[in-house]
């Protein structure tokens, strides 16, 4: 099944709507919450611009600036990175089921984080080991996957995917074993696995920002190469694309950015696979459009999901991974029913 390629006007309208949605989600992320009224925060922001006067107390201002703002910004970064990494993986593997966790990032990070969580208070002394070991685990897993399935000159993307499946299975088994050996930590491991922005701080934002900025930029710039590579490896080589080099760079960028995000917020599912598909249904199959719009859409989508996660059952929070699926799946189904699907 096919659709007509979208017109420039349509793409411009969708881009404008996505930007508007992102702004609304970001403002909502700052303004909506159980402790401070939305309009108080909006009023304070306007007062900051010289319009009217702020009614926020210093404590409320601290809540907005030190709790909600870094959480919102980290949500933007996580959503942008996971969505663009998913789109990039789908392009480079020419596989609609590819997501940022395909090559073992999630399993490696899960093992690293579980190791840190079960050992906190024993051999490891602080919870700051969790993001560090999650990052090391994620990058270690992708490196092993690449060494097994992507190093040789004639390695196909299928070999790399299969290597990712093998490495993921092995590391997930190891993580499950560790978890089972330390039943007292199961709840904390489980919460980490479901992902959360609750521990966001400005320091975590500054920590992941350089990774996300560089990796998102590399992925977006790769859009033209991924468009050429959509005709397959041999054809794109005959058209002048150094396929192996491009594949290495975009996989490295996607994996590094995803590892940085996962180390900060845990495993947030759904964004990396569904956002690129939603964007593809809206703007067509060209990665020159899919990648930048996925950045905007993913960022807004994750902040929206997080706002829902922390408000609907306030003061307790829903797991973010659950909300991304609960919000994303109906949106995807609606768009899918309105438009006929297009290929990756």
């Amino acid at each position: 099944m096919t659709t007509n390629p979208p017109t420039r006007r349509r793409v411009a309208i969708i881009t404008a709507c996505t930007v508007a949605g992102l702004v609304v989600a970001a403002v909502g992320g700052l303004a909506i919450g159980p402790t401070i009224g939305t309009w108080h925060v909006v009023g304070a922001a306007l007062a900051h611009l010289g319009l009217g006067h702020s009614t926020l107390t210093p404590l409320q201002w601290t809540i907005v600036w030190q709790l909600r703002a870094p959480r919102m910004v980290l949500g933007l970064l996580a959503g942008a990175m996971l969505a663009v990494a998913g789109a990039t993986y789908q392009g480079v593997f020419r596989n609609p089921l590819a997501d940022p966790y395909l090559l073992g990032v999630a399993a490696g990070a899960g093992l690293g984080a579980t190791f840190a969580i079960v050992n906190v208070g024993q051999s490891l002394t602080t919870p700051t080991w969790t993001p560090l070991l999650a990052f090391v685990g994620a990058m270690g897993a992708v490196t092993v996957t690449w060494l097994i399935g992507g190093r040789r000159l004639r390695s196909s993307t299928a070999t790399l995917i299969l290597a990712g499946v093998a490495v993921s299975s092995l590391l997930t088994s190891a993580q499950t074993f560790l978890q089972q050996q330390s039943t007292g930590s199961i709840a904390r491991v489980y919460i980490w696995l479901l992902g959360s922005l609750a521990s966001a701080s400005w320091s975590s934002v500054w920590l992941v920002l350089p990774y996300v900025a560089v990796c998102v930029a590399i992925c977006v710039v790769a859009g033209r190469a991924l468009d050429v590579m959509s005709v397959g490896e041999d054809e794109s080589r005959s058209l002048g694309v150094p396929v192996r080099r491009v594949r290495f760079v975009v996989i490295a960028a996607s994996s590094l950015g995803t590892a940085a995000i996962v180390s900060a917020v845990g495993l947030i599912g759904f964004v990396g696979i569904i956002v690129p598909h939603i964007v593809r249904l809206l703007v067509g199959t060209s990665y020159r459009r899919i990648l930048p719009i996925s950045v905007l859409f993913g960022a807004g989508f994750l902040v929206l999901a997080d706002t829902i996660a922390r408000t609907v059952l306030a003061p307790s929070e829903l797991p973010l991974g659950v909300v991304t699926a609960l919000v994303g799946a109906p949106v995807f189904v609606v768009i899918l029913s309105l438009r006929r699907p297009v290929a990756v």
Partner: protein
Amino acid sequence: MSQVVVHELSVRIGKKELVSSISLEIAAGTWCTIIGPNGAGKTTLVEAVAGLRAPSHGSVTIGRKSVSSMSERERARTVSLVPQHPVVPEGMTVYDYVALGRTAYHGLFRPPSAHDRSVIDGVLERLSLGEFRDRDGATLSGGERQRMVLARAFAQSTMVIVLDEPITGLDMRHQMELLELLKTEVADCGLTVVATLHDLTLAGQFADRLVLLDHGNVAIDGPASDVVRSDELVASYGMHLRVVDVDGSDVVVPVRK
């Protein structure tokens, strides 16, 4: 002067040697068609000429430069490829698909230049694809789609074009149209064509020279009229063939035993 020189080329995949010590010289502005039964090594040979298969021994040289030593970009400006089963991504317009042929000129980080766009427009015009430029390429008929693939190869502005079974799946009219288009480019632009074809009649009618491959070796190489009448051709296909002269053209007809 020879445009394409294949020197003692062998290509091995795993333990199997698909092409064994083949040497050919193809002059600039000529059409050379590789024929032979399935598994003879035709596709391997033309893919090696296009730089997609690395020789295990020997070399392929185009314009005095070894294809293996070229970067992907340099190679794409030297030799273009029409594959046997081209991938046409759904949702990609005919214009964007043909524009892929200019990638080696504008690179992966810049859009096509004004010159690139004029080349693309010219190719679309020449191949009567102008009316389809904004259509999804995947929705074209077989003949239109194959013309689009040819247009992408022409947009590469190379002096050598490699075609692997370019008329597979086309009806007789579209087969003739496509080959005539190619013949015009050979005559007008001095294009050098290296093609594989299963249809011996069309191979003989369009090529200046036929090379018969059998089990990875050259069985016979020469003018089409000689090759289609050769004993080697009969032996290679293992069947009776008759060559009938129809209005001055050779028609190869299989005959039941």
